[in-house]
């Protein structure tokens, strides 16, 4: 006597029979018939034709029958909208039932009937239910608002249901609060700009109270909502963290992960010096480890999130390597994720253990897993330099197993190890060559060919080896063909005498017999290079290769920060921001980590100052803007000059009073008589104080002349090019120069050398070497330099703006890890973003251009078709600037994000970028 009886059908008109039963007078028969209908519906049979008959059964006191009919209605109302109206009256009546269970059931079902016509009738009952005395009804009604919003958003707004919903956040019953939050969150997702969940300290307090008392699911909604809140300071952040921490001990893993999200986000605001910060870090590890003992599906999601967490805060799990060791019966998706995290946690301290494990995995049966394990060994070698040797010998052991795919993977990673540590492990080449014949995968063949070509001079029979590949040239994949072409050209350049025939053969295969344009083009380029200029060919083909980066799969810091805000969501599983995959682009709001508050930041800076910039060297850009004028006028320029008496408080350069009585007449008059000196502008920096430059035609340039920017090679080789023109009638002698205190301590490194007296209308060009050891005072703008030139006639004051890149020093390349750490460490509020327009450069060109101005590319990555360059530079005063340059092929604009502890330099760094890139 089970429900399966409902599935037995008679051949002849099943629907017809059911119809008859539904209209039966006997209650029992009716109910049995409805059950049969539901059973058919659940297995996907179409029983919509019975709609009127089923609705007729709705008016009943029998709760089960009522529920069954409701079930049916929800499924089919949409296909029978006119019929569905028939049910409305019963619903409205049920919403007034004395039994709260019936009231709740009615309002719940009504919301599920997705028919426009019904929604109008729903409003009044819903309004009542939202204010029902029974919390069970209120909580059900809260969800109903979300349902209604999905059907008719405008109606919900017009009826003021959203406000009622917001009020429910302060309800006395925690379950009502949780459901109101859930409903509002769902509605907010389709209205990203709306302020539906406008949280303030009071509502946060309400939520935190409800958090302790509501069901596990409610806790998830509340925690996810809390994560969107931005505490006003570190104290509030800490107090929220304290109240959220107990959730880490919840049995429901989703509650735990949502709590982790809140903590990871708000931790960002806490000073690392706080004891509490350390406590919190310690509390995060155990729950994450516990997630790994859950069911495999939960483990998978947890591992994807842990992958983000170990990149953001490696310290949390650095001692927990062992829990990521793979059990042989873990599902493959868990194994692969664990492997990934093992490599991320690998360090000198644990590398021996990790390698032993990886070697074990490489002998398992699952091919995908084995391959990844072999690759992982290679990644360890590249990541932990001290382990490289051991990794190589492990790989050699694996090659000895002669398991085909193991050998091939090993060769692919050994190629990378060669790239990372040139001239260290080439002794193993002989072993690799032994396996040449067994390679059947393009990637492995290409890697092997690359190795043979690259080390042709050490392999006696390189020509034979490469020749053997040539026989089946046209059957090879493009990857192998290209590699073979290059390898043979390399070989030829290294051993030209013996291999001429071979190179001609491959060139003709590539250019004449191939249909592949890439191959043909590469062939022609080599051919022409070799025939016109073999020396140039050598330089090009055998050029020194840049080192490969350590970890190719780290998530870029900005994306990582965004993903941390999405812990526990689908975005965290895909490691993509929701904007990259959320259906229909429902305007996704970008989330960002909260900035550290000012108080904690200052407390923290000494500890976290980036490399090479101990606190002492931190920008002394601080001295307040003082009395510039006074400063300038008090220049010690030898013999007192005529009339510089005014120590006015006007900071305006070029103010007329500046020059005092001596030049009064000159300046005052529009028809002046030839002023007695001038410097023709070098083209840098618009002169400030136009009055002055007008009069004297005097301005100076710092750096180099007319557009050809030559970056200083080292600190101290900065120079200022001046052009002095005597526009006066008398001869000028006794030139001297002095700078006002300025932001970067620029000062003349030598006296101004004007050897001969300057006759009227004569021009002299001088290059004045500068140093950066002068006294420092913050200028406005930052790159403003005020200069005084003295001669036998008078003192002349002028100012100029110098481009910041003259201050970029040669050792401005930051280590990769340090870059990541520093980037994370600099608060987000210090980040500045700029657009560089009309700069149609590709990443390589931009990178090399910038490098020649001492802006160094630390890493490069391609993300969804965009090239991301991560760059660092250091100023003469030890300030580091970190940059992310995003270049989209085909789009002439690129985006520059700058992070620096002294954010005031960003604007000028941006200008430097623009100047360099557009030159």
């Amino acid at each position, binding site marked *: 006597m089970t429900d399966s009886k409902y599935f037995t059908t008679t051949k002849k008109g099943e629907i017809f029979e059911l119809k008859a039963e539904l209209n039966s007078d006997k209650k029992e028969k009716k109910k049995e018939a409805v059950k049969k209908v539901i059973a058919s519906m659940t297995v996907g049979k179409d029983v919509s034709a019975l709609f009127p008959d089923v609705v007729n059964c709705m008016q009943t006191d029998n709760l089960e029958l009522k529920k069954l009919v409701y079930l049916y209605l929800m499924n089919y109302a949409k296909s029978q909208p006119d019929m569905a109206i028939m049910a409305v009256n019963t619903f409205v009546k049920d919403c007034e039932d004395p039994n709260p269970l019936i009231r709740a059931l009615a309002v719940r079902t009504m919301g599920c009937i997705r028919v426009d016509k019904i929604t109008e009738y729903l409003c009044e009952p819903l309004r009542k239910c939202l204010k029902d005395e029974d919390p069970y009804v209120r909580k059900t009604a809260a969800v109903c608002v979300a349902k209604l919003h999905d059907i008719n958003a405008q109606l919900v707004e017009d009826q003021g249901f959203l406000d009622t919903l917001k009020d429910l956040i302060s309800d006395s*019953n925690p379950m009502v609060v949780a459901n109101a939050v859930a409903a509002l969150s769902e509605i907010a997702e389709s209205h990203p700009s709306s302020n539906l969940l406008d949280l303030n300290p009071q509502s946060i307090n309400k939520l935190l109270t409800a958090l302790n008392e509501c069901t596990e699911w409610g806790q998830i909604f509340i925690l996810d909502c809390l994560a969107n809140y931005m505490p006003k300071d570190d104290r509030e952040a800490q107090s929220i963290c304290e109240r959220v921490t107990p959730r880490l001990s919840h049995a429901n893993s989703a509650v735990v992960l949502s709590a982790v999200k809140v903590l990871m986000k708000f931790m960002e605001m806490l000073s690392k010096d706080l004891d509490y910060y350390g406590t919190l870090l310690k509390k995060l590890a155990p729950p994450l480890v516990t997630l790994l003992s859950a069911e495999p599906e939960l483990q998978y999601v947890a591992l994807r999130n842990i992958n983000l967490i170990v990149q953001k805060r490696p310290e949390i799990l650095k001692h927990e390597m062992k829990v990521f060791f793979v059990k042989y019966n873990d599902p*493959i998706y868990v194994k692969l994720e664990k492997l990934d995290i093992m490599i991320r946690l690998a360090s000198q301290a644990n590398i021996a253990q990790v390698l032993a494990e990886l070697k074990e995995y490489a002998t398992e049966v699952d091919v995908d897993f084995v391959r990844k394990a072999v690759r992982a060994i290679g990644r360890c070698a590249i990541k932990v330099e001290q382990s490289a040797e051991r990794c190589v010998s492990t790989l050699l052991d694996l090659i000895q197993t002669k398991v085909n795919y193991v050998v091939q993977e090993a060769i692919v990673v050994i190629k990378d190890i060669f790239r990372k540590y040139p001239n260290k492990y080439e002794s193993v080449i002989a072993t690799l060559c032994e396996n040449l014949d067994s390679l059947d995968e393009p990637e492995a063949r290409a890697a092997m060919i690359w190795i043979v070509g690259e080390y042709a001079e050490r392999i006696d029979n390189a020509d034979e080896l490469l020749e053997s590949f040539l026989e089946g040239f046209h059957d090879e994949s493009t990857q192998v063909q290209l590699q073979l072409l290059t390898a043979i050209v390399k070989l030829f350049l290294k051993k030209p005498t013996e291999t001429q025939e071979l190179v001609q053969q491959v060139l003709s295969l590539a250019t004449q017999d191939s249909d592949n344009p890439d191959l043909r083009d590469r062939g022609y380029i080599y051919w022409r290079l070799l025939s016109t200029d073999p020396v140039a060919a050598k330089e090009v083909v055998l050029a020194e290769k840049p080192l490969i980066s350590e970890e190719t799969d780290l998530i870029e810091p900005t994306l990582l920060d965004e993903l941390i805000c999405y812990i526990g969501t689908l975005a965290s599983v895909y490691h993509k921001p929701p904007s990259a995959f959320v259906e229909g682009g429902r305007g996704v709001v970008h989330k960002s980590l909260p900035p550290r508050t000012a108080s904690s930041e200052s407390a923290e800076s000494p500890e976290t100052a980036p490399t090479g910039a101990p606190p002492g060297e931190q920008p002394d850009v601080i001295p307040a803007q003082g009395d510039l004028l006074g400063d300038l006028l008090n220049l010690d320029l030898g013999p007192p000059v005529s009339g510089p008496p005014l120590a006015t408080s006007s900071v305006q350069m070029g103010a007329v009073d500046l020059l005092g009585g001596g030049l009064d007449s000159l300046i005052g008059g529009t028809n002046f008589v030839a002023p007695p000196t001038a410097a023709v502008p070098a083209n840098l920096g618009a002169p400030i104080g136009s009055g002055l430059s007008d009069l004297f035609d005097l301005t100076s340039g710092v750096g180099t002349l007319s557009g050809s920017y030559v970056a200083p090679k080292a600190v101290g080789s900065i120079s200022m090019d001046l052009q002095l023109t005597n526009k006066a009638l008398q001869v000028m002698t006794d030139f001297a120069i002095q700078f006002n205190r300025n932001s970067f301590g620029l000062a003349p490194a030598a006296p101004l050398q004007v050897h001969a007296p300057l006759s009227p209308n004569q021009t002299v060009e001088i290059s004045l070497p500068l140093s950066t050891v002068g006294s420092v005072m913050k200028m406005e703008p930052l790159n403003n330099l005020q200069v005084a030139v003295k001669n036998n006639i008078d003192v002349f004051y002028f100012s100029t703006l110098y481009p910041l890149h003259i201050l970029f020093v040669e050792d401005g390349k930051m280590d990769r890890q340090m870059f990541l750490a520093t980037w994370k460490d600099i608060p987000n509020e210090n980040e500045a973003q700029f657009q560089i327009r009309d700069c149609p450069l590709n990443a390589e060109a931009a990178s090399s251009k910038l490098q020649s101005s001492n802006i160094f590319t630390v890493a490069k990555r391609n993300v969804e078709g965009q090239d991301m360059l991560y760059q660092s530079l250091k100023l003469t005063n030890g300030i580091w600037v970190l940059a992310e340059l995003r270049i989209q092929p085909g789009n002439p604009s690129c985006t520059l994000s700058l992070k620096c502890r002294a954010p005031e330099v960003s604007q000028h760094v941006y200008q430097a970028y623009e100047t360099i890139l557009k030159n």
Partner: protein
Amino acid sequence: MIHSLFLINSSGDIFLEKHWKSVVSRSVCDYFFEAQERATEAENVPPVIPTPHHYLLSVYRHKIFFVAVIQTEVPPLFVIEFLHRVVDTFQDYFGVCSEPVIKDNVVVVYEVLEEMLDNGFPLATESNILKELIKPPTILRTVVNTITGSTNVGDQLPTGQLSVVPWRRTGVKYTNNEAYFDVIEEIDAIIDKSGSTITAEIQGVIDACVKLTGMPDLTLSFMNPRLLDDVSFHPCVRFKRWESERILSFIPPDGNFRLLSYHMLSWDVGKINPQKLPSLKGTMSLQAGASKPDENPTINLQFKIQQLAISGLKVNRLDMYGEKYKPFKGIKYMTKAGKFQVRT
């Protein structure tokens, strides 16, 4: 939130579908079938599968795939936890969770699912409360129902949902009041070829079966609570009390439930004589005619030790407040192998 649920058997038939919002065509499962085909074994089907308009989140239990369909950004753990709850509920209701049983009880299944989610939001997931709303089938009730026409559906308001202890129904009555606690520890370990331990950890749980009248308030204390530093609690446990006094204080749910689970990476095994290290040896013989295993099979060990929690965890005492009667109390300990793997 959760849009729909499909139950699929291992031969790829959809044998039940349930929609909590608009109906999602079952053709969405084609993406699942593709993934199923790619994964050589059922266990290896990835738990999150993207499709052009939906996401499929699945768990594989009792040879059934429970596939949830979601359309918007929903925490995947939330969905997977919920699916596990569905499995547990079926098991609780029908004793076993299998395709024939689900098909046999399809109406109850449907009613239960309807009560578990509303518009994709969890509604009643505690089996205590569900059983009040929808009576689990018993042979007797099925017979009685057919004869008298009474139903599975209760006409009670699920009172527990409104009280501050939503996990316990009110008005519980027993003639024999009893509370049993099982401390069960599983050892997960990987032992390498040479016999040394690569990893070892304890996954411990305290499972309870509490049948007490009224609203009993229990406290349970340990001899050595310091052992527990990585613990997950049932929502009934008062966390503050644990934090301050290391005492478990709670109003228990009615019936079977997991009071807490804990996790240990290292533990004290007492004194071992270094001259006579304990060792356990075993031989593995293949059945005649069986094909030779892969070169280095990993061996899964199973063992049980009664009346011992290997970590040394010991319950000190259990007290009951709030009710007058004297309950019968019992504590049992057991240690067994979890994922205990020996590499060869």
